[in-house]
């Protein structure tokens, strides 16, 4: 826009190029979409007709609309896990309040109602995130649970009625045989976005996403911007909910939940950077359609069901790779760096080839002894004030939950069985917390946890097949496979420059396919007696695995707090460039981090196999979101660099104790979900960020 003000023709060329570079993400997503459309056209029997385009456009509209909202949140530096649940809520609210007897329904009225519900959800999120300065991921996770509960209270099973008038409007043609309505709806939302982007609010939004402190320093009302962002995003989810209601003509309390993960993939494939400040909803719309059209490609190519998740994962990686074809991409930079290293090696000037001489400047170094005399070591409380501030709340809440359990259910504090169960059930998440926590400390996220757990358990059970002797080779094999999985994740992220969310999401799909192929759909084998004994027997008062957990916790604390590896992890999380400049081998460290994460997931897979006595497909499905939640509840910062393993452990114990309390009651599931969300929200209230200066 600034270039348009300059009249000279030369600068308008520069402006065009800048606009291209700035929107490269969206452009590449558009090109990928065009290529995929071409493939569909080419391999399918007939040419693409208007009808094809029309139903393709309606197929991707819900996720495109919701992903636009998610994009705006991500641009502001946030994260919204409640999007899928908000869509479900809007769907059941519409389906349960429309009257099947009424002759017609007002499209405008019901659309407004849906958007209103979405905005109310957004305002709830926004209040806690903007006004109370809490971390978006944990607020929206709590909101997700609360909404799921509320949704089930509104409608506990699929049903209800949505007027066909809505369907006729939203799925019809804007201009007959030329322009389908879903594209118009998306277009209107995008136009509204362009208008918004041009206003002061739009500038403020990008500024807050790039650097909230600087934004506040130049006088932007960060609280207001953040609040508005969640409300606007909520409106988008609301519209998505209206759309899916129109499309399905009824209500289903579970309809929106599976949209969540693909929404993030759409955002990232569309060129928006997680963490904020870069990208925009246009790319996201293309991203959403790229992901959707994969369904059609799999259909026309007749890909076998077992291979479909593998194909999807591969397409996701390829789409992300296509997005990084440029001179400045990570892959290109890495290739250039490798060339430079080879050249240096030929010339014999690589640092490792040089003679090892101490080349440091001879400046008098202060002796450590003298120094400690001048300034004595501060007290433990002072030295660790920051860690304590973030780690303690989880433990305080844990104590409260245990006391409540004692009062409500009895037989708790003095019952060794309770504590043993708490620790055994916590082990899974405690181990995962190290893997997920370390990745989060570096600013990443590992979404391949579920099927790393699944495939590890399935391979182990298959190899062991009830024999203790087989453990000797089965355990190392499974751990080695996990190392390979982690290496693949790390390699893709570090050397191919694929964002962690996309890379690990793709790996998860590929692993799911591999697990299905390996097991042919029915996982064989069962755990050996020793493994079962380890997970379920009692040595006096405790189960053997509890002893392992104690060792594991000590090792984890030492690994993150007392080793060079741990310091490098924190260094990378606090600033990638600073870490690189200070000589940290960023690539090697990150790959190790993802390997650690995969190994932790594999250990959980092994332990779960021992605990259940067998492995099953999907055994890791319930561990993804909790593994992220405990890390954040334990005081870690989702953007990396801050957090302590003991804090995460507190988060694990807190959430497990809370689940045990709720399981002991006979409250309906909906109420439990709401309570769970509220308690998590309350527990992290103490983790509020300090007020911006």
């Amino acid at each position, binding site marked *: 826009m600034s270039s348009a003000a300059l009249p000279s023709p030369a600068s308008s060329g520069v402006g065009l190029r800048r606009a291209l570079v700035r929107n490269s993400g969206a452009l590449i997503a558009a090109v990928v979409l065009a290529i995929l459309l071409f493939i569909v056209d080419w391999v399918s029997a007939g040419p693409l007709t208007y009808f094809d385009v029309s139903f393709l456009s309606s197929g*991707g509209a819900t996720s495109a609309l919701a992903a636009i909202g998610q994009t705006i949140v991500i641009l502001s530096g946030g994260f919204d896990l409640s999007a899928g649940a908000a869509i479900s809520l809007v769907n059941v609210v519409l389906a349960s309040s429309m009257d099947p007897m009424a002759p017609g329904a007002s499209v405008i009225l019901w659309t407004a109602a849906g958007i209103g519900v979405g905005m109310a959800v957004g305002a709830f999120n926004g209040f806690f995130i903007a006004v109370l300065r809490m971390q978006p991921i944990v607020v929206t996770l709590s909101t997700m649970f609360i909404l799921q509960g509320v949704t089930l209270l509104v409608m506990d099973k699929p049903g209800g009625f949505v007027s066909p008038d809505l369907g006729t409007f939203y799925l019809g043609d804007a201009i007959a045989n030329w322009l389908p309505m879903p594209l118009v709806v998306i277009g209107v939302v995008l136009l509204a976005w362009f208008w918004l982007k041009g206003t002061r609010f739009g500038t403020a939004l990008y500024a807050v996403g790039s650097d909230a402190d600087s934004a506040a320093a130049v006088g932007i009302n960060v609280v207001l911007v953040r609040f508005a962002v969640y409300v606007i995003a909520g409106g988008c989810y609301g519209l998505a909910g209206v759309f899916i209601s129109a499309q399905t003509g009824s209500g289903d309390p579970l309809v929106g939940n599976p949209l969540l993960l693909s929404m993030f993939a759409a955002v990232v494939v569309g060129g928006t950077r997680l963490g904020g400040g870069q990208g925009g909803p246009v790319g996201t719309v293309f991203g959403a359609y790229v992901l*959707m059209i994969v369904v059609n490609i799999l259909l026309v190519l007749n890909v076998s069901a077992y291979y479909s998740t593998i194909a999807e994962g591969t397409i996701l990686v390829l789409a992300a790779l296509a997005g990084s074809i440029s001179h400045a991409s990570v892959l290109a930079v890495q290739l250039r760096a490798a060339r430079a290293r080879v050249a240096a090696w030929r010339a014999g000037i690589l640092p490792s080839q040089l003679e090892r001489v101490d080349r440091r400047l001879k400046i008098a170094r202060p002796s450590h002894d003298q120094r400690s005399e001048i300034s004595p070591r501060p007290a433990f409380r002072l030295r660790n004030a920051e860690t304590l501030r973030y780690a303690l709340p989880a433990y305080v809440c844990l104590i409260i939950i245990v006391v409540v359990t004692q009062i409500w259910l009895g037989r708790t504090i003095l019952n060794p069985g309770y504590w043993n169960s708490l620790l055994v059930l916590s082990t899974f998440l405690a181990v995962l917390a190290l893997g997920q926590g370390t990745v989060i400390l570096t600013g990443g996220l590992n979404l391949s946890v579920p099927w790393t757990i699944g495939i590890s358990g399935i391979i182990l059970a298959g190899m062991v097949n009830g024999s203790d002797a087989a453990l000797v080779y089965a355990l190392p094999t499974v751990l080695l496979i996990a190392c390979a999985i982690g290496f693949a994740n790390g390699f893709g992220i570090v050397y191919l420059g694929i964002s962690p969310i996309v890379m690990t999401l793709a790996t998860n799909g590929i692993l799911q396919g591999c697990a299905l192929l390996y097991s042919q*759909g*029915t996982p064989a084998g069962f755990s050996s007696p020793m493994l079962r004994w380890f997970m*379920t027997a009692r040595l006096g008062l405790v189960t053997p695995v509890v002893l392992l957990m104690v060792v594991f916790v000590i090792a984890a604390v030492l690994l993150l707090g007392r080793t060079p590896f741990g310091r490098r992890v924190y260094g990378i999380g606090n600033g990638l460039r600073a870490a690189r400049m200070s000589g940290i081998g960023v690539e090697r460290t990150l790959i190790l981090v993802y390997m650690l994460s995969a190994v932790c997931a594999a250990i959980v897979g092994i332990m779960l196999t021992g605990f259940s006595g067998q492995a099953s497909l999907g055994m890791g499905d319930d561990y993804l979101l909790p593994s992220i939640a405990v890390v954040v509840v334990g005081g870690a910062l989702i953007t990396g660099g801050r957090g302590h393993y003991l804090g995460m452990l507190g988060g694990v114990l807190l959430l497990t104790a809370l689940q045990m309390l709720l399981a002991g009651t006979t409250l309906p599931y909906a109420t439990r979900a709401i309570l769970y969300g509220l308690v998590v929200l309350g527990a992290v209230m103490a983790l509020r960020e300090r007020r911006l200066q």
Partner: protein
Amino acid sequence: MGIGLKVRPLALLAGMAACAFGLSAAQAAEKHKIFLSMSYIGNDWQAEAANMVKAMAAHKSLADKVDLQVQVAGPNAQRQIQQINAMVQSGAEAIVVYPISPTALNQVVKNACDKGVKVFAYDAEITEPCAYNVHIDQLEAGRVTAEWLAKKLNGKGNIIAITGVPGTSVDDQRTKAAKEVFAKYPDIKIVGEAVGMWSQAVARTELSKILATRNWDDINGLWMQVGCFTANSMQLEAGKKTSELLPCAGEGSNGGRIQMLPEGTEVEGAASPYAPLGAQRISYASPPYSGALALKLAVEAIEGKDVPKTTILPLPVVTSETIKLCDEGTWAEMKAGCNAFKPSLVSNPGWFASIFSDQTPEIGLAAALVGQPEE
């Protein structure tokens, strides 16, 4: 089609492709193009059902009639809508579908019906009137199992209930029907209730949570949609004798069926807890053959036979009195009344054993395990 070929670039490749399409089109002319749209295949039941559908399509009675293509929609109803649309577009004569949602597919299914495509839903239901449904009566499942348990307990005692996936019609109907039965017995109290997600692993975690503040001795019976096998293992670990195992109304997994055999029965490949324990059980399931039967009915419907819109499958119920071990697991053998399989043949105890139907002599154990039809 002609216009499409003209504008298509890469003339040579296009020509080859056209040849290939021409061939397959000629073959397909004799075969019925049928699609299977599955849900999430990451669990035992779905994988087993898929194997049985494939075996049915490969059976000699159907192999030269049916061109079956299998697609997976994942857990996402939105994707299934789009998938069904794409199937209609590519010329399906029938679509066999495991509906992710009973209501969300209504419009797309109606659209398919309008184009003359037969839509068959298996296991779960599609409420759109033009769809064919093949499933068991879930209310009956909840009622029969609850009545069995109430009788076993002589109408008195504390029970734990483990339900399925909240928000689904199947879970809602089973649980509601069971609770209505229990409500008739004022002395039966549900002291713990948890969401089991139809998974043995989840059932175990949830039971462990409930038992952290309770004792096995305070509990008299279990009603679970999935999890009796696990509950029995947990009781043994807690030091109970096999004769003290609580009565459990629950799923039809093969592990549970083997546990129902009288203790001491010689069974090849058995190892505790996947071994005969003489457990008091009623075992029921949504049978995984429903997809295969739906395919068979779909072919009949295409061929113009009269197929009822709703096929209610008989509820496969096995109790400790009717349990019988199979030798090989052929259809003929199951017809004679056997209903549990040796661990040496079925190594996964979570595998669903209710695979027998009078109406599907094409498929037996090999079909469910590896997708091989009977001779």
